[in-house]
Each structure stands twice: as C-alpha cells, then as structure tokens.
C-alpha cells in the first residue's frame, strides 16, 4: 500500500471508494457523502461525468455558461461545494477526489503525487499555478478545494480525450454583460493528455491512476444517501441556479432587424427589475418581470408576449 507522508513524517494510509456512475448530480453528492465519512485515512475517488458544466460554490452560473447553448449541447449544469472556477466535464475527462487532513502543504502534496503518476505514464506535465497542471503550456487539469472540520477535500479534472470543441462552446460568450461580486473563472488554453500518452483513453487513465496509488479498496454503502442528497441539493434549482450571487445584466443586440437593449437585476436566480428598450420593449419587460431565470420559464413567457417567433428566439439567446 502506498502511504502519503507530510513534511513532518506523519503518514496516512489511502482508501479507495469506487463509483462508476456518470450522473453529474449524483457524483457530486457521492463525493460529499465520502467527505462526511468519519475516517482518519486519506480517501481517493476517481470518477467521470456525462457532459456537464460544473461551477464553483460561489460563482454566478449564468455568467459562466450560456443556458441556451448548454441546452442545445445537452450539458447538465451542476454547482459544487468547492471554490474556484467553472469546468467542463464529459466521459473523456477523469476526475479525482483526494480527501485528507487539512494541514499546511496538503494541497501541494496531492498535486505533486498526481503529477508524478502522470509523468510515470509519459506525460511531461508541469505545475501551472493555482492548482493547475499543464503540458507544453496548455492546461490539462484544474483543481479546487474545500476545508471543513479539519479535513481537506481536493478534487481535480484531467482532460484525457474530452470534446474540447464542446468545452469552448459552453463558455458564455456574453460574460462581459454581467456585473456581480461572484468568483470569476480564469480562462486558459487547454489540451487533452491522450496525445502525450500514446492515445490512452479516459477509462484506462482512470484505472492506471487508481493502480498507481495502490489504495486499500473499501465499499461503504453510500448509494442511498448520495441519491437522496443529489435529489435534495444537486438537482434542485434553488441550489444550482438560486445560489448564484445577485447580479446585473445589460446587453444591446439585434432582434430580427430591430435594435433592442435589455437591462435586468437578478437575485436568487429571479429577475427582480427589468428594463427593455426597443420595439415592444415595455411588453417584454412586463412579461419577464419576476421570472425565474430558467430556460423553460423565460421561453414560455417570451413566446406568450411576442408573436414573431424569430424575434422571441433572438431575445431568448440574448437574455443570458
């Protein structure tokens, strides 16, 4: 068994809990349940998600990803409990979670261990700062952390053979239209590890990562609790969207040949005040005032207020 010591020579044994689910909300909940286990050892999870955009605890999800595009791309939207920025997941991306005691240098130790394994596999990785890992100057991994009750949850992404086109398309191109005090993401050029690992796929890298740490496998019964937490928190609109800090949005655009300008203030994911300039602006503002900023609700209200479907669609695209 590999043990992971700190600078003072204290060592923690490592336990591994398998989770083959691909459901992003369930997997966040599974990780949260693992974090709450009363264990003194280090705990490793290695897992993957179907396509998803995962934002940091205190981010404005609306600013980070464009809701209409996420719907077209079939991306689940999830809010996690760690800090940091927004990341893209799909089955070509491997996530690792490392739970350990919250001591000085714990995060650096975890990152060094992960980089060692990647180097042993053949990828010339280098630290990127702020918990990132790069190959040839391009980011292949980001990480974020949460500290509670003396324990650290450190998790990170590893782009192996992810759809980088989808990743790029899901960043919100309208992010400059938002004003808030939310934590912002720091965009970086990205790359997949696969090309540096002889075409290795994500499932293989996940297996190799676990094998490299040779942890003791345990199988606590987390499924029931994780499903309940996924339902009550990670699939709940009030968590994923409602926890976005209050913000102001302003955007001028062309709506089917007519110039329009929309300004609104939102709190807990609801439009609190809205002003719309341009043809039919007052009617649009009345229709949207108080609306929950969910795609279905905004679409239904717009389609009721505007007869011209092309204009309604243009408005929908430009309200997020």
């Amino acid at each position: 068994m590999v043990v992971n010591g700190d600078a003072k020579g204290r060592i923690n044994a490592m336990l591994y809990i398998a989770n083959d689910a691909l459901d992003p909300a369930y997997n966040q909940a599974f990780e949260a349940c693992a974090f709450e286990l009363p264990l003194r050892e280090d705990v490793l999870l290695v897992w993957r998600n179907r396509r998803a955009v995962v934002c940091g605890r205190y981010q404005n999800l609306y600013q980070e990803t464009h809701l209409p595009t996420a719907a077209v791309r079939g991306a689940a939207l999830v809010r996690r409990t760690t800090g940091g920025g927004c990341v893209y997941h799909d089955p070509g991306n491997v996530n690792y979670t490392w739970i350990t005691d919250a001591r000085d240098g714990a995060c650096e130790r975890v990152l060094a261990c992960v980089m060692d394994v990647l180097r042993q596999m053949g990828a010339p990785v280098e630290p990127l700062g702020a918990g990132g890992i790069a190959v040839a100057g391009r980011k292949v991994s980001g990480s974020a952390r949460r500290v509670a009750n003396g324990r650290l949850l450190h998790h990170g992404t590893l782009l192996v053979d992810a759809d980088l086109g989808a990743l790029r398309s899901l960043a919100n191109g309208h992010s400059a239209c938002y004003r808030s005090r939310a934590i912002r993401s720091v965009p970086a050029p990205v790359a997949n590890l696969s090309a540096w690992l002889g075409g290795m796929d994500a499932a293989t890298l996940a297996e190799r990562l676990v094998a490299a740490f040779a942890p003791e496998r345990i199988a606590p019964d987390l499924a029931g609790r994780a499903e309940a937490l996924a339902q009550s928190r990670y699939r709940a609109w009030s968590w994923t969207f409602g926890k976005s800090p209050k913000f102001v949005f302003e955007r001028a655009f062309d709506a089917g040949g007519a110039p329009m300008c929309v300004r609104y203030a939102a709190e807990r994911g609801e439009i609190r005040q809205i002003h719309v300039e341009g043809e039919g602006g007052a009617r649009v503002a009345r229709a949207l005032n108080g609306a929950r900023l969910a795609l279905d609700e905004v679409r239904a209200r717009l389609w009721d207020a505007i007869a011209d479907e092309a204009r309604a669609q243009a408005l929908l695209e430009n309200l997020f």
Partner: protein
Amino acid sequence: MKIEVTMPKMSPEMRSGVLCAWLKGEGDRVRKGEALFEVETEKVVCQVEAERDGVLVRLLAEEGDDMPVGAVLAEMEAQP
C-alpha cells in the same frame, strides 16, 4: 466580554479572502466549533468555526467583501 471575529490566515501565502457567506446572523447564539462563515481564497472554500461560545452581536463585513487577513468581520459577546 466582546471578542472580534477576524479573517483567518489559511495558508502561508494568503493575503486576503472573500467572505462568501455568513452561516449565522446577528443575534444568533453560537457554540465553539460551530461553522460561522465561509471564506474563499485561491480556489479553496473554507468553513470557519467559532472559537468560543457566545452571541454574534454585529456583522461588519458583507457577503462578497474581499477582506485582508486579520480584518475584523464581526463582533461576538463571548459567554463563559
């Protein structure tokens, strides 16, 4: 006895942190070890716990404020 709740230094490099959320409000009774607020710095969200039993008298920082290490965030009336 009045005591000050300050922005903790969570790593040797930390200069400031964003007070992201109060988990207790003015007038709330808190027990030592109970989570008081959450801070984010360098991609870490850290739950900060009360160091004493007492009553949270006054909040001096708002959610979203970026506060230097050591800055006073709240006043507590400590209870023996």
